[in-house]
């Protein structure tokens, strides 16, 4: 254990991986809380997939493989995807989940086409675009972690500044609007911040697993508390815990890839919370039911009829 701690502090690779994963966990935990409460959990999934063609186009246009350039492309593509999503939901009879599926899969298809096109030209490996598909947490370097810290820090600062407005928007948009807080502008800001989280996640856990990073920590945190501020804090904590312990697990065991390990750790936290969280845990529900069934005498049909009859 102390050896592991020493590695965590002094092993260059592990430290970067753990720090990067923790940052991702915190940022996506905080923003995922709002996404979950607005019932937009899967928006992150769509945004992550939609980012791929952006990464490829950014590379094709600039020839640069600098993460910041590629991530900018990812952000822009995620944005275009969101707009298209809104267009489909508002202007056609298709439902929101159909719109999500359409944007997610066709953008990804275009991305795959572009990626293969780049591959065939023979310079994809230098560009290393593939790593955004599955994420390469294990390959995070100090510069990546610094980029994450700046991006994520800015996003968290904005959430802190606008926490009152975001809460209002999430709970009661009509009331927010009647008070003069422009809900369209606020939604756009919030979605943009989710794009930032996705951008960080792409490099760490990859396209497919990003959905879990946004939904998991928040869904787990919701079970432990009935207030928003503690929920956000817990969600960040769960995200960070999953990130660090996933990084440590994959570091100590051969053949455990980092991104999937983070997601599996997170899943364990989610199910643990769903089952055992104090007030909302399903296990306690079941125990209470059984206790009730055992303690009182089973109501016989006659007793049931009587109690029905005696009701005012």
């Amino acid at each position, binding site marked *: 254990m102390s050896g592991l701690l020493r590695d965590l502090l002094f092993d260059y690779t592990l430290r970067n991986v753990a720090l990067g994963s923790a940052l991702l966990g915190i940022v996506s935990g905080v923003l995922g809380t709002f996404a979950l409460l607005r019932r937009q*959990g899967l928006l992150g999934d769509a945004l992550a997939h939609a980012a791929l063609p952006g990464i490829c186009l950014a590379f094709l246009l600039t020839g640069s493989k600098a993460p910041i350039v590629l991530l900018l492309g990812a952000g822009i593509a995620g944005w275009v995807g969101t707009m298209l999503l809104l*267009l489909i939901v508002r202007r056609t009879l298709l439902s929101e989940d159909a719109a999500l599926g359409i944007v997610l899969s*066709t953008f990804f298809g275009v991305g*795959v086409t572009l990626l293969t096109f780049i591959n065939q030209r023979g310079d994809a490996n230098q560009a290393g675009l593939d790593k955004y598909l599955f994420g390469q947490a294990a390959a995070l370097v100090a510069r990546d972690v610094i980029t994450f810290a700046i991006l994520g820090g800015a996003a968290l600062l904005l959430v802190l500044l606008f926490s009152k407005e975001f809460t209002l928007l999430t709970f009661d948009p009509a009331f927010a609007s009647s008070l003069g807080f422009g809900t369209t502008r606020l939604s756009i800001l919030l979605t943009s911040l989710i794009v930032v989280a996705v951008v960080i996640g792409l490099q760490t856990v990859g396209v497919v*697993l990003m959905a879990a990073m946004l939904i998991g920590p928040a869904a787990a945190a919701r079970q432990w508390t009935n207030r928003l501020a503690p929920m956000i804090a817990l969600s960040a904590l769960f995200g960070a815990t999953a990130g660090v312990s996933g990084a440590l697990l994959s570091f100590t065991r051969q053949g455990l890839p980092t991104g999937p390990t983070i997601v*599996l750790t997170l899943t364990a936290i989610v199910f643990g919370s769903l089952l055992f969280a104090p007030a909302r845990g399903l296990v306690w529900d079941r125990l209470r039911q059984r206790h009730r069934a055992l303690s009182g005498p089973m109501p016989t049909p006659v007793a049931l009829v009587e109690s029905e009859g005696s009701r005012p």
Partner: protein
Amino acid sequence: MSSEIAVPLTGVLVASACALLGNFLILRRMAMMADAISHAILPGLVAGYVLAHGPNLLAGFLGAVLAAAITVTAVQALERTRRVDGGAAIGIVFPAMFALGTVLVTSQFADVHLDADAILFGNIEFVAFDTLTIGERDLGPRSIWVMSALCLINVLFVGLFTKELKLTTFDAGLAAALGFSPVLVHYALMLVLSVTAVGAFSAVGAVLVVALVIVPAATAYLLTERLALMIPLSVAFGAAAALIGYRAAIAWDTSIAGAMVSATGALFGLALLGAPRQGLIARAWRTRRQRATIASQMLAVHLFNHESGPERDEESRVAHLREGLRWSPQRTGLAIAGATRRGWVDRDNGRLVLTARGRQAAEQVVAR
């Protein structure tokens, strides 16, 4: 069979099989279940291969269907706890399954066919080389046999159970009352979808299956509201996208599966713009016309409301319309022109007077 025939044929078969089921996912608002299932079959597929010591088709199938069943059940169970909503339930389950699959792949088989690219993009390029042989006889590409069988299963499923699918989709309560269990139909649909997803997975990969299931059906939905028409249209769009994608991929030397999906997207985009009723262009055109009609109607109703009061002279001045209704001069002009053309108003030195027909129109509009 050469690749030039085997690849597009496989594409058309995969797309058709997927599109058939997609119709019901779109109508049931369960499109994202296709996303969940197509990702979640990975650990089952891999576990099947592990147990069979190699990429054995049947073992993979069984494992994948089992994994899909676990996923569908888990999503439903999570939703039923009411601790999380439906979207979140999907978003919790499928990444976990996919992560499990990835871990299995890297830990169990660094060397077998299931490399990272195959999981995400499939390998339709190579279907011609993987042939089915019985004894010494070469029966042609295996994928053609598999996908033909899947197509047949789906055609039979949709054909035989149209009534049940339709009823449980549009009125689950009535279906249950008539003795068709919506739950049973749901699980049957999910089962067929999982089997299809497994077959398609090896050809086009996890994410692109989703496109082939949802997008052609969504495109058809933009064009018609009749199920009997929507189903053949969706299959046609799926098949067309497969062929277009194949040609384009050859021309530009890129991923065939990716190009096929891009083609489904392009067809959807065309329908989104040009569909006769739901399309954006038709809608914009209709909105314009409707606006003009409503402007004339508003004018008629306005004059009608103020016809008998003492404010009549003031309210019917053309200049007042701009101030009172807050209309632009252009819009005011349009409304007056429209109402005049319909014979609803007459001009009487600077004032507008409602005709008998105009009065009738106004009464009709506000009566409900």
